[in-house]
């Protein structure tokens, strides 16, 4: 008799997800799926709205990365307006984007994943949360809090609000940066550097304990997609996309926002509301790829900042070619956080950052526009069509989690095959299956859920789909 094991909901993720594991008659894992069970509907209900409302509207998709949607949306609007924003506005947006990345990566590492890494995958679920980390390693708990505050306070200083700031608008930003706010941010840098250095040191100290997880946590050859500058340094706000193959070879380069839909497609599977994004010339699912910190560090030749470049060199020693195990998303995240702090310092020490000219104005000059950026979790694209009055007639958002969807599903199957044996499952085995998803840090929407404990519903189905047994914790 075949069995189906369901993990519902998956814990310590942004949003709601469910994992189904199918066993064959021998009790071996045959298949596994990661289901996204939410429907948001933004692409539909934004139709009829003025295009310039889209940044504020789409920022409400998420409370963790609203800045990403603000920026991608604003860029799509600027394509409709046919404007190029002032240089200072572009740099200020870059600071905002980097600040968000630092706080988002801190949330992922310290709050969502460090309980597993520091306390162990088999540790008591009732303790496997930030309080457990605070008890075992209080200095790391404080470092995580500090990095989150660093990023959030910069967002607040720039945009008045920490979440859903209205500062980014089509054409630029609403207000220039004041000297006092710039100095306040610069004063926060030493502590930020100290906190991320502590995290990197702690991660490197403990990563070796997870050799088995490293080998089966979505560890397979894949393609990788991310923004890159012409000098092959990492980029989060501008540049063009590069797709590389499993050996690091360039498959396609210079993918601009306007060119995006020509080469990137979206497939639908009947078990999830999140689309499966792929590179069209290779078809689906062969054209699947990964995005986000691991992909970005695999694609670029340099971070462009000295400390992060040292860390990148060390990161690239992990493999001869692209680093394949998704476990190393944790490592890549911390390298990016360090880069973010360095880049913020570099931008803010340029006197031009206080320039007052931060906005360009225009009306509808094109009936279609697209914008793309690198969100903390990976590439984000907004694409709009408008009528002559600037009202949205069509909108499409391609989010990072969609890009990673196929890889997450393959990763869940790979881990399940390793840890779920003979129809039996342990707390640690199921936590590891969840932990694979957490390496991708998917944002299924901002939603709260419980640390530590694993609200778990396991459903056993007969081969004809009838419920044989059900266990709910």
């Amino acid at each position, binding site marked *: 008799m075949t069995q189906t094991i369901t993990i519902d909901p998956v814990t*310590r993720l942004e949003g709601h997800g469910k994992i189904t594991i199918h066993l064959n008659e021998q009790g071996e894992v045959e298949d596994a799926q990661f289901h996204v069970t939410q429907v948001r509907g933004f692409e539909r209900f934004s139709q009829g709205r003025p295009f310039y409302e889209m940044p504020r509207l789409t920022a409400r998709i998420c*409370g963790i990365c609203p800045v990403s949607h603000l920026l991608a949306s604003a860029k799509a609007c600027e394509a409709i307006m046919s404007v190029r924003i002032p240089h200072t506005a572009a740099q200020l947006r870059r600071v905002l984007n980097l600040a968000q990345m630092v706080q988002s990566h801190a*949330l992922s590492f310290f*709050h*969502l994943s460090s309980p597993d890494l520091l306390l162990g995958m088999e540790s008591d679920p*009732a*303790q496997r*949360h*930030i*309080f457990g980390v*605070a*008890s075992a390693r*209080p200095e790391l*708990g*404080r470092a995580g*809090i*500090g990095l*989150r*505050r660093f990023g*959030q306070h910069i967002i607040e200083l720039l945009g008045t609000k*920490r*979440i859903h700031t209205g500062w980014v608008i089509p054409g630029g930003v609403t207000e220039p940066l004041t000297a006092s706010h710039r100095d306040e941010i610069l004063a926060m840098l030493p502590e930020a550097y100290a906190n991320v250095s502590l995290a990197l040191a702690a991660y490197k100290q403990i990563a070796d304990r997870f050799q088995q997880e490293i080998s089966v946590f979505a560890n397979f050859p894949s393609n990788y997609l991310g923004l890159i500058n012409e000098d092959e340094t990492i980029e989060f706000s501008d540049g063009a996309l590069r797709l590389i193959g499993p050996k690091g070879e360039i498959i396609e380069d210079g993918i601009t926002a306007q060119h995006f839909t020509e080469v990137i497609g979206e497939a639908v599977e009947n078990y999830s509301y999140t689309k499966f994004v792929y590179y069209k010339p290779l078809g689906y699912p062969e054209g699947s790829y990964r995005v986000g910190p691991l992909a970005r560090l695999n694609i670029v030749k340099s971070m462009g900042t000295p400390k992060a470049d040292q860390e990148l060199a060390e990161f690239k020693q992990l493999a001869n070619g692209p680093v394949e195990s998704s476990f190393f998303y944790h490592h890549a995240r911390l390298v990016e956080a360090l880069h973010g702090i360095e880049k913020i310092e570099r931008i803010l020490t340029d006197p031009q950052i206080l320039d007052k000219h931060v906005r360009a104005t225009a009306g509808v000059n094109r009936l279609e526009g697209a914008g793309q950026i690198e969100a903390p979790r990976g590439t984000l694209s907004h694409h709009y069509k408008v009528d002559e009055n600037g009202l949205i007639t069509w909108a499409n958002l391609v989010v990072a989690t969609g890009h990673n969807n196929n890889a997450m599903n393959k990763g869940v199957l790979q881990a399940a095959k390793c840890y779920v044996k003979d129809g039996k499952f342990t707390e640690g085995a199921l936590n590891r299956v969840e932990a694979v998803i957490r390496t991708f840090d998917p944002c299924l929407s*901002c939603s*709260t*859920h*419980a*640390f*530590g*404990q694993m609200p778990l519903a396991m459903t056993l189905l007969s081969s004809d789909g009838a419920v044989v047994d059900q266990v709910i914790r």
Partner: protein
Amino acid sequence: MNQIPLQCLILACGNTLREDDGVGPFLAQWAEERWRNDPRVRVLCDHQWTPEMVEEVAQAESVVFIDCATDCAPGEIRTMTVEPAQDNSKLGTHHLDAPQLLALSNQLYGTLPRSSLLLTVGAGSLELREGFSEAVQAALPAASSLMEKTVLELLGSSNDRPSTQRK
């Protein structure tokens, strides 16, 4: 962590788009005006209380948490002492309640405010709209007065005692 002592932290939460859930932001704005030039008082307000607020809590000699309540009559105003949570097995990633914030302060910084109070106003309606229900609208002056009285008492008692207790 910033070592400048803070005598009273007013920590409010709520959503102004959810009718009476906006009582926290309303009282926070009132408090900002009331103590605008008083460095002894700091006012923080957000949609929810998050782990990142624990630094301010750890630095404060006293904390007044402000929120609406759903377990009492609409417009009913209550204050109660808050103790650190003992059971943290059910913990959210994006929001904490007042007892959990205190417990995290103790765990991470080894400090607790000398006084921690929760001031709530009973919610009559949490619909998707701005403004307040009649009961809460009528209670706002009394809630503001009670908050003012509470903070002044904490500031007064703070002047007579040594700094934040340490555990």
